[in-house]
C-alpha cells in the first residue's frame, strides 16, 4: 500500500470508540471498534487508531487527514469535573448565574432542585461599568476594580474566567479592556469573553455560553494536547482536526480556545454522515435516524444542509410531552446540529406502571448490566430483549457472534415483568414494548418534521447505529417516508461523518433594526449591514488562513435572523446568490434584502402555519459561516458479485410480525454476500456484524452501487 494516503476518523462514544480509515486513492474503507475508556478517553482513542492502522495495514506516516469527534467537553460538565472558574459581570448583576431563568425544571415536584451554577457565588465578581442597549457607555469601566478582581483570582488560584458585561454584544469595548487588564495582572489566566464567544443579546444565555466555554477550556486544551502528543509518538503527523456541534471541523488549536463550539461533536458526525450517504444518491432532504444503546436521535437535513439550532441545553435530554418547560440543562447559544434525542435505545427498560400501563424508557440498562439477554446480571427487560424474543435478532450472531444472547432469559424476564401483570403472553408483551418504543421514536421524528413544517413524505431516511436498521422500516411505514437508506456497517457509519465535512466557523452579531429601512435609498442602511458582514468575514478569513486553507477553498455564507417586530423568536434566512471572487455569498442591495424578507415570511408560514406579510419585520442577528473546503474521499462503487439472491441467504427463522398477526418463517440474508443489484423482498432479515436490518412484508431492499440497502414499498421482483 506504499505511496497511498489515508484519511482517519476517530469517534469516541459512551460505550465504544469507532475508527474509520479511508484510502484517498482507492476509496477503500477499513473500520475498527474498541471499548471506550471514560477515565482517560485518549487511551481508547489511541487503541482505535492502532487497530484501524492494523486492520488496513497502513503506515502511520500515510495518514494525511485526521478528524476526531468527542463528547469529552460535555462529559466534563455533566460530571462536574471542570477546574476552578470565575465569572465577571456588570455591577448589580453578579447573581445572573444563580437566578438563571427563575423557573423550576419540573412543575409538580416540590423536591425539585435548581440547576447548580457552574461558578459558585463567591467566584462571581461585579465590576462598576455600564453600557446601554445601543452600546453607548453610560458609566466608564472602573479599572482599579478590575485589578482588584485579578488579584482575587490569583489568591483563589482560578484557572479560567468568563467575562460577560451587560450589553457587551453591542459593544465589546469594556470586555476587551477587562481582558487586557486581567492579562497584565494575571498572565496565567485563561480568559473567555462573551463578546468573542457569543456576541448575541439576552444576557443569561450569552453568559451561560461564555461560562461553559471558560469551564471546559482547560479540560479540552489538556485533552487535545495529550492526544496530539500520543499521535506524535505513534508517528502520525497529520494535523488533528475536531468535529464541532455545527457539523463542521476546526483545528485542534481553534477547538482548544472555543470548546463550547464542540459540545455536541459526536452526535453531529452522525447527521453529517447521513447527509453524505444520501447526497451521493441525490437526496438532499432527509432524516438522519441514529439508534444506539441508550437513546435514539433524529436529525433533519434540508437542501443538503443539516438543520442547526441555537437553542440548546447541555445535559438536558429532549423528551416529547415535556412541553416548553426547560431549564433542565445549561443553555448555550452556539450553533448545534438540531437533534431530538429520546430515551429509546436497545438498552431502554420496559415496565408496567402503577395504573396498569406498559411503559418503555427513558431509563436504560446501559452497557452494564445491559439487557437480560446479555447474561451479565440484567434483570429488567429492554428493547433488545423484546427484539430477541420476537426472533428479530440472531442469538448466535450478535456482534458477529462475539456475544451469544440468552433468548430464554429474555422471554422469562418479559413474562414476569410485563406480560403477566398485563394478562398478555410474552410475545404480545414483547411486541407491545417494540410498538411503544416505536411510538416514542415517531414522536421524535414528528418533532423534527411535521412540528417544524416539514412533510415526511418528501424526505428520505438514513438509518444507522447498531439498533437503527431494526426499527427504521416500521418507522418509515408509520411516517409515510418513501425511501429508507441503510448504509454498510451501520454501527460505525456515524464516524464516517468526520471525514466528509469542511472546516467551518460561525460568527454572529446582534443589531436590531427595522427591515423596511432597506427601502429608504441612501440612508447608509445596507452599507452598515455590509460592514458588519465584512468584519465577520475578515475574522473568518484570518482564522481559515491560520488553518492553512487556500483562498480559493474559502466560502462565506451570509445569513440574517429575522422576526416580526415585537416577536422574540427569530427565523434564520440565508442571503441568496452565487459565490463572489472572494468567496462571499449573498448580495446586499435593496432587492436582495427584500427577497430575504419575502423568504422570511414564507419560512415563518412553513414553520408555524401562518405568515403575516403585512406586518413589519425586524432584522436581529447577522451571521456569517466561514467554510474552508476539504476534498471528500472518493468511495468506490461496487459491482455485482454474480451470485443469485438465494446464495446470499443463510436460512430461515421464525420472526414475529404484528401485521401478519404472528410468527412468519422469514428468510435471513448475509449482508456480506449482497452486492450491487441484489433485491431482497420482505419479510426478511439482513444480518451483518454490527447491525441487523428488518424488512417488512410489502417492502423490498435493493442494494445500490455503494453497498447501501435502499428500502421502499414494493414486492418481490
Amino acid at each position, binding site marked *: 500500500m506504499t505511496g497511498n494516503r489515508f484519511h482517519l476518523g476517530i469517534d469516541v462514544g459512551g460505550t465504544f470508540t469507532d475508527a474509520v480509515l479511508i484510502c484517498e486513492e482507492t476509496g477503500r474503507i477499513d473500520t475498527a471498534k474498541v471499548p471506550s475508556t471514560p477515565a482517560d478517553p485518549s487511551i481508547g482513542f489511541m487503541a482505535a487508531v492502532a487497530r484501524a492502522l492494523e486492520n488496513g495495514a497502513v503506515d502511520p506516516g500515510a495518514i494525511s487527514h485526521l478528524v476526531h469527534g468527542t463528547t469529552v467537553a460535555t462529559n466534563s460538565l455533566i460530571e462536574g469535573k471542570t477546574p476552578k472558574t470565575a465569572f465577571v459581570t456588570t455591577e448589580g448583576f453578579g*447573581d445572573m448565574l444563580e437566578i438563571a431563568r427563575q423557573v423550576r425544571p419540573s412543575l409538580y*415536584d416540590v423536591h425539585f432542585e435548581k440547576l447548580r451554577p457552574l461558578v459558585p457565588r463567591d467566584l462571581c465578581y461585579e465590576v462598576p461599568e455600564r453600557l446601554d*442597549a445601543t452600546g453607548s457607555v453610560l458609566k466608564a469601566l472602573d479599572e482599579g476594580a478590575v485589578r482588584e478582581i485579578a488579584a482575587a483570582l490569583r489568591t483563589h488560584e482560578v484557572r479560567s474566567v468568563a467575562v460577560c458585561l451587560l450589553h457587551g454584544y453591542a459593544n465589546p469595548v469594556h470586555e476587551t479592556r477587562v481582558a487586557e487588564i486581567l492579562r497584565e495582572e494575571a498572565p496565567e489566566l485563561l480568559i473567555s469573553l462573551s463578546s468573542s464567544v457569543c456576541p448575541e*443579546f439576552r444576557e*443569561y444565555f450569552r453568559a451561560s455560553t461564555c461560562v461553559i466555554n471558560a469551564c471546559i477550556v482547560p479540560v479540552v486544551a489538556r485533552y487535545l494536547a495529550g492526544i496530539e502528543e500520543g499521535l506524535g509518538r505513534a508517528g502520525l503527523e497529520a494535523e488533528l482536526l475536531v468535529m464541532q456541534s455545527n457539523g463542521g471541523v476546526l483545528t485542534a488549536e481553534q477547538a482548544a480556545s472555543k470548546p463550547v463550539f464542540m459540545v455536541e461533536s459526536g452526535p453531529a458526525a452522525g447527521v453529517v454522515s447521513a447527509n453524505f450517504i444520501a447526497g451521493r444518491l441525490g437526496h438532499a432532504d432527509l432524516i438522519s435516524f441514529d439508534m444506539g444503546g441508550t437513546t435514539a436521535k433524529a436529525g433533519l437535513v434540508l437542501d443538503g444542509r443539516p438543520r442547526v439550532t441555537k437553542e440548546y441545553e447541555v445535559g438536558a435530554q429532549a423528551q416529547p410531552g415535556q412541553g416548553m418547560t426547560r431549564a433542565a440543562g445549561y443553555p448555550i447559544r452556539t450553533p448545534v446540529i438540531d437533534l431530538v434525542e429520546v430515551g429509546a435505545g436497545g438498552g431502554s427498560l420496559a415496565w408496567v*406502571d*402503577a395504573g*396498569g400501563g*406498559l411503559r418503555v424508557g427513558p431509563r436504560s440498562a446501559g452497557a452494564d448490566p445491559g439487557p437480560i439477554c446479555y447474561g451479565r446480571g440484567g434483570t429488567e427487560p429492554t428493547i433488545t430483549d423484546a427484539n430477541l424474543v420476537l426472533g428479530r435478532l440472531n442469538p448466535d450472531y450478535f456482534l458477529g457472534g462475539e456475544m451469544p444472547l440468552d433468548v430464554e432469559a429474555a422471554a422469562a424476564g418479559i413474562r414476569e415483568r410485563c406480560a403477566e401483570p398485563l394478562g398478555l403472553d410474552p410475545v404480545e408483551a414483547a411486541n407491545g414494548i417494540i410498538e411503544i418504543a416505536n411510538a416514542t421514536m415517531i414522536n421524535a421524528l414528528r418533532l423534527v418534521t*411535521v412540528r417544524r413544517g416539514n412533510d415526511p413524505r418528501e424526505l428520505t431516511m438514513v438509518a444507522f447505529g447498531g439498533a437503527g436498521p431494526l426499527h427504521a422500516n416500521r418507522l418509515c411505514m408509520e411516517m409515510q417516508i418513501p425511501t429508507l437508506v441503510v448504509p454498510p456497517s451501520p454501527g460505525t457509519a456515524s464516524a464516517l461523518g468526520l471525514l466528509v465535512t469542511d472546516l467551518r466557523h460561525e460568527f454572529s452579531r446582534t443589531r436590531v433594526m427595522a427591515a423596511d429601512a432597506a427601502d429608504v435609498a441612501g440612508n447608509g442602511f445596507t452599507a452598515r449591514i455590509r460592514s458588519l458582514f465584512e468584519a465577520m468575514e475578515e475574522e473568518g478569513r484570518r482564522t481559515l488562513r491560520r488553518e492553512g486553507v487556500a483562498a480559493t477553498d474559502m466560502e462565506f455564507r451570509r445569513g440574517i435572523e429575522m422576526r416580526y417586530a415585537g416577536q422574540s423568536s427569530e427565523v434564520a434566512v440565508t442571503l441568496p446568490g452565487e459565490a463572489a471572487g472572494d468567496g462571499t455569498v449573498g448580495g446586499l442591495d435593496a432587492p436582495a434584502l427584500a427577497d430575504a424578507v419575502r423568504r422570511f415570511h414564507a419560512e415563518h408560514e412553513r414553520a408555524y402555519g401562518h405568515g403575516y406579510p403585512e406586518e413589519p419585520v425586524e432584522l436581529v442577528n447577522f451571521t456569517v459561516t466561514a467554510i474552508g473546503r476539504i476534498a471528500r474521499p472518493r468511495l468506490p462503487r461496487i459491482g455485482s458479485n454474480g451470485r443469485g439472491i438465494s446464495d446470499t441467504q443463510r436460512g430461515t427463522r421464525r420472526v414475529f410480525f404484528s401485521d401478519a398477526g404472528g410468527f412468519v418463517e422469514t428468510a435471513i440474508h448475509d449482508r456480506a454476500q449482497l452486492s450491487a443489484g441484489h433485491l431482497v423482498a420482505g419479510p426478511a432479515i439482513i444480518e451483518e456484524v454490527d447491525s441487523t436490518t428488518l424488512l417488512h412484508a410489502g417492502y423490498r431492499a435493493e442494494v445500490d452501487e455503494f453497498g447501501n440497502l435502499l428500502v421502499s414499498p414494493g414486492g418481490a421482483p
Partner: protein
Amino acid sequence: MPQPESRTASSVDPVLFEVIRNALVEATEEMSVTLQRTAYSTNIKTRLDYSCAFVDADGRMIAQAFCQPAHLVTIGRLVPRAVAEYEAEHGEGTLGPGDGLLVNDPHRQASHLNDVFLIAPFFHEGELVGYVANCCHHVDVGGGAPASIGAFREIYQEGIILPVVKLFDGGRLVGDVLKLMLANVRAKKEVAGDLRAQHAANEIGLRRLSALWQRYGPETLDSYMERMIEYSERRLRAELAELPRGEFAAEGCLDDDGITGEPVHLKVRIRFDGSTARFDFTGTDPQRAAPMNCNLTQCFTACVYVLKCLVDPDIPLNEGFYRPIEVVAPEGSAVNVRPPAGVVGGWEVAMRLCDIMFRALADPMPERVPAGTKGMICHVGFGGEDPATGEYYCFLETLAGGYGGRHDADGPDAVQTHIQNTQNAPIEETELNYPVRIHEYSLVPDSEGAGRRRGGLALCREYEFVGHEPTFTTLADRARFPAHGLHGGCDGKVASYRLISGGDARNLGSKATVQLATGDRVRIETAGGGGFGPAHERDPDAVLRDVREGKISRARAREAYGVAIKPDEWAVDLAETDRLRGGRR
C-alpha cells in the same frame, strides 16, 4: 396498588392506549410551540404565561400542554360553560368549523381579565368531537392602569370584559369584535399579535387532531379517551388510599385587600378519606370590593395543584384527575367571588392558598411538604408614552422569590413557586424594547427563613425610567406576613416595595399604582422562603458555605444558626459554635 388492566375487563390494547395518549398530548404541545414562537408580548413569548388544551365534546379535559400550572383546570372548567352559554343564546349546533370563541370574564369562570381564552370546536366528518383552546395572559386589557393590574374596587375598572363572543366565524375574523377590543387596550400591537398567535395555535391543534381522527377513527378514539379518564381517576384514587386519612386545617392572611388596609383571612380544612380529597374553605373572609378575590376556578386550580404535588407526578392530568376532588368554597367569599367584585388579584389569592394548604398537611406529611414560599405572583407592571417612538407601551413581569425548605433539602433561591413558573425577561431585551433601565437584579442575602434546611433567598430588582413619566404598579403581597417556617424552622424575610425619588425612599406597600417622575427608581425585594426544622440543627458546614458564598452574613450565622466562623480562615469555630448552640452541634 390498583387492579392491573385485565384483558377480559375490556378490549383495551395497552399499547394503543399509550400511543394515543402520547399523540393527544403531542398535539397540544405543538399548539404550545406555535403560540410561543409567534406571540408578540414578552409575557407570552419569553415568560411563557399561556397554556393549550384539548377537551372532548362534553367539555371534559383530555390532554393539555401547559407552561403554567395556574391554567391547569381553567380551560376544562371554562369551555363547557362558555359553549353552553353561547348555544343557549344562539341555538344548539350554531358552532361550526372555523369558529373561535373569545372569553375572559372571571365571573363566567375564566380567570382574571388578562387571561384571554380562544376556543375552537373540532369537527370530524361533520360531527363535533371536542374543542381545542388556549389561554394567554395579555399584557394589557385596558382598565385603570397600564398592564391592567392595580387595586380597583370592581371588575369594570379592571379592563374590557369579553363575554362569550365569536372572534372567528367560519374561518373569517370578526373584525368588529377585534376592533372593539383593540380600542379598549393600551398595547394594541402586542394584543393583536398575541390573538393572531392564539388563532395559529388552535389551527395547528385542529390539523393534528384531524390527522389522528383519520388514522384511528372516532369509535376507537372515543373509547380510548374514556379509558384515559378512567386511568387517571383510578391512579389518583389508588394514591389517595395511601395518603394519611383525617382532617387537616390551616389558615393565613394576605397583607391587605388593596383598597382597605385590612388583611384578608384565608382558611382551609382538608379531608382525605382514602378515596376522595375534600378542600373546605369555610371561614375564609367574605369577598371585598377590592382586587384580592379569586373565583371558584382559581380556587379549584390551587387544590388540584397541591394534590398533584402529593401524588405520583406521572398521573396524566385530565378530567379523571378532577373527579375525586371536592371543593367547598362559600359563594361570596374571597375564594369564590360574585360580581361585581374585582378579581385581578385572584391568582395572588390562589397562590397563597397553595402555601396554606401545604401548611395544613405539614404534620401528617412532613416529608412531602415544603415550608412557606414566596407565596405570591408578584406582578410588576408599567407603561406610558415611549419617548423614542411616541407610542404607548405596556410591560408586565412577575418576580421570583425564595422556595420553602424541605425535609431533606434547602429551599432553592430566587425561583417561581407553586402554580406559577414564568421565566424572567432578559434585561438586555427589556432595555432594548422599553424605556427602562434595570440597575440591579440580585439575591437578597439574609432573606431566608433559617432552619435545618433553610428557605430560599428572595430577589431584588431595581428599575429606573428614562426620559418619561410612566405609571408603575405592583400587585403583590408578603410585605406583612412572611413565608412560614415548619417544624421549628424560622419564617422568611418579608418583601419590600420602595420608591426612591431624589434621595428619598418611601414604602409603597405590596399593592400600589404610582405616577413616576423621570429618574425615579423603584426597588423591589421579594420574600424569602421559610425554613424547615430548627436552625441550630443545621450542618455548620452548610452555614459556612452560605457565609462564604455571601448568601448569609457572619452575624446572621451566629445569631440565627448559632454557628461561629473563624475570623481569619474559612472554617467553623467549633468550640464557639458548641457554646452558642448550648453544647449541641
